[in-house]
């Protein structure tokens, strides 16, 4: 017997009402009773052990990134298993965490999280789970270094699988800034007076602080002179036209010529280049590298999630998604042939060691998160 989901129940009831099989009072009464029953049972739903899973929810960064997931992963997965993937988007990890915090366990299932620092935050808030790696055999294709950093945070187990990596480098309009000028100025071009009103930046305290460290010649993972870094952020703020809040806005500001230079996400900038825009991209020394993972939240239907993760890590799926998103996959190039396009993507490491990328140290960045995120809120308003 097939178990009926709530949507089907509602549709059948509505059909009965529209056909005149039940009167309006009964229809509304049943809807009300269903609402009441749902409201009463929701707090206890977390204790349900047996689940017939017809859908899982996945939240990601939207834009071309989500489009690639939909086309190359979710659609084929639903076709194969019958499990629907409900696809949501968010503007950043903080925003998503806030939504998860307000929801019941199980309401949100999987998320495309960025950085080990995000993984650590979610884990420390008790939102992680323990994946059964036996159900994810495709994990063997993943670069071991990418897995190990997550294991360290969650005591040897995993609540996610690594999926891709990239950098937040500097994107610049080649019609106005030459490659030579970019090489010469590096991260300091973002505080160049000559470009006042044509500079952008991500409205994200970590990125702002990371680049401030580069502009003040400090190690981003060990910023000692914090005041100098805030001063660099203030200088950038006074020269910037706009802090962008999403990948779509970043692409629009650059493509429309509103700004000439900003930090940017490697894959999004590659997408702009593919569209024919004369935009250059450079990772300055100690540029911001990050690895993204597919995180499973506590309370999610584990087996269905593991099945989806395994499907997404299958080389053919992972490569197709990576080619759509323009971010190199977490697959180990020494084990999997990644095709022709991926080696051309920014930040790609053919060795699979990722030694050339600098990642944010979770302990350092999460340790300063509370104070720095609040201070950035003030600094960007002119303080």
């Amino acid at each position, binding site marked *: 017997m097939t178990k009926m989901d709530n949507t089907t129940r509602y549709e059948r009831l509505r059909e009965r009402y529209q056909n005149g099989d039940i009167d309006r009072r009964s229809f509304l009464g049943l809807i009300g009773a269903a609402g009441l029953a749902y409201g009463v049972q929701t707090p206890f739903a977390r204790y349900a052990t047996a689940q017939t899973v017809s859908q899982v929810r996945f939240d990601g960064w939207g834009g071309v990134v989500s489009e690639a997931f939909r086309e190359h992963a979710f659609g084929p997965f639903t076709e194969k298993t019958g499990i629907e993937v409900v696809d949501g988007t968010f503007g950043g990890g903080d925003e998503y965490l806030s939504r998860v915090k307000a929801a019941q366990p199980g309401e949100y299932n999987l998320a495309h999280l960025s950085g080990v620092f995000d993984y650590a935050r979610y884990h420390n*808030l008790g939102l992680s789970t323990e994946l059964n790696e036996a159900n994810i055999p495709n994990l063997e294709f993943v670069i071991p270094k990418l897995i190990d950093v997550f294991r360290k945070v969650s005591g040897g187990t995993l609540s996610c699988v690594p999926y891709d990596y990239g950098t937040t480098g500097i994107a610049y309009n080649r019609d106005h800034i030459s490659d030579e000028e970019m090489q010469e100025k590096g991260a300091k071009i973002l505080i160049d007076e000559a470009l006042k009103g044509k500079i952008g930046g991500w409205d994200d305290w970590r990125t702002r602080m990371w680049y401030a460290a580069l502009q003040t010649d400090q190690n981003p993972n060990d910023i000692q002179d914090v005041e100098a870094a805030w001063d660099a952020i203030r200088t950038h703020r006074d020269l910037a036209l706009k802090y962008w809040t999403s990948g779509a806005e970043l692409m629009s500001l650059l493509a*429309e010529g509103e700004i000439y230079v900003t930090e940017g996400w490697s894959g999004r900038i590659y997408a702009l280049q593919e569209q024919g825009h004369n935009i250059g991209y450079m990772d300055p020394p100690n540029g911001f590298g990050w690895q993204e993972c597919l995180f499973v939240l506590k309370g999610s239907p584990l087996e269905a999630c593991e099945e989806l993760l395994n499907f997404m890590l299958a080389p053919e799926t992972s490569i197709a998604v990576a080619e759509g998103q323009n971010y190199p996959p977490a697959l180990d190039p020494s084990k999997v042939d990644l095709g022709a396009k991926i080696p051309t993507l920014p930040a790609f490491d053919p060795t699979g060691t990722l030694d050339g990328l600098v990642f944010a140290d979770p302990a350092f960045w999460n340790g300063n*998160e*509370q104070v720095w*995120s609040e201070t950035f809120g003030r600094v960007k308003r002119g303080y």
Partner: protein
Amino acid sequence: MSVEARERKQPWILLTPALTSVTLLLFVPLLFIVVYSFWLRTATGADDPGFHLDNWQKALGDAFYRDILLSTLRIAAITTFFCALMGYPAAYFIARSKGNKAILLLLLMLPFWISYIIRTMSWINILGVSGALNSALMALGVITEPIQMLYNEATVILGLIHYLLPFMVLNVFVSLDGIDTNLEDAANSLGATRWQSFLNVTLPLSLPGLAAGGLLCFVLGAGTYITPLVLGGPRDAMFANLVFEAIITQLNWPLGSALSLMLLAVLGVLVMIYNRYLGMTQLMKGLG
């Protein structure tokens, strides 16, 4: 049960659904926010329940929040002023037009069919470097280089006017539409010019509508965060943006709760002042 007793109970029975909704959807969540405002955020982002005054001390004592609140009230006041300036003639025209009033009102309502965010973002296509206005000016030879018009306080105010103008027009229209035009005719027959009859008869009688529209525009304008987010530069924040950041970005729900209650209190005082001197009846007419 006697007829009198039943009649006494009837209004309460009829009001029960509305009162239940208001209690469950407004007062209970508000109570949660009040409770939250006394909690603390721990270093991991988790909440620390208890009774702490730290958030209130910060919200009320920190010059940063006071300055942004004053800036928000200033922007809302400027927006309201321009809405009144532009909305009154439009409402007057609609109220005095013959025959096509319904079409004009429908045109006024049309923008509400489009998402507020989309309407706000449309200004990027109009005022952007490669937007319609710059393209037109360059095509006409008025300018040789595009002018940077976006992402400043002026565009935030422009976006707010775009959003709030219909509220002003509707309120003023309701007020003007209820004025007996014979009063203007009487003033004219007694020797007043059209301008004098407007100034001495129509304008004073329509002031309650103007005030109701002003209150709505001010309160809605002061509470917005989308417009500064889309059309503002790095510094152009309003108070609601601070609430958004505290809750969403910093995961500091307790501080966000205290800040939102602070904004609510300030706007609540304004509504109470309005109610004390003008009453809420006109506002209800406009909203109706």
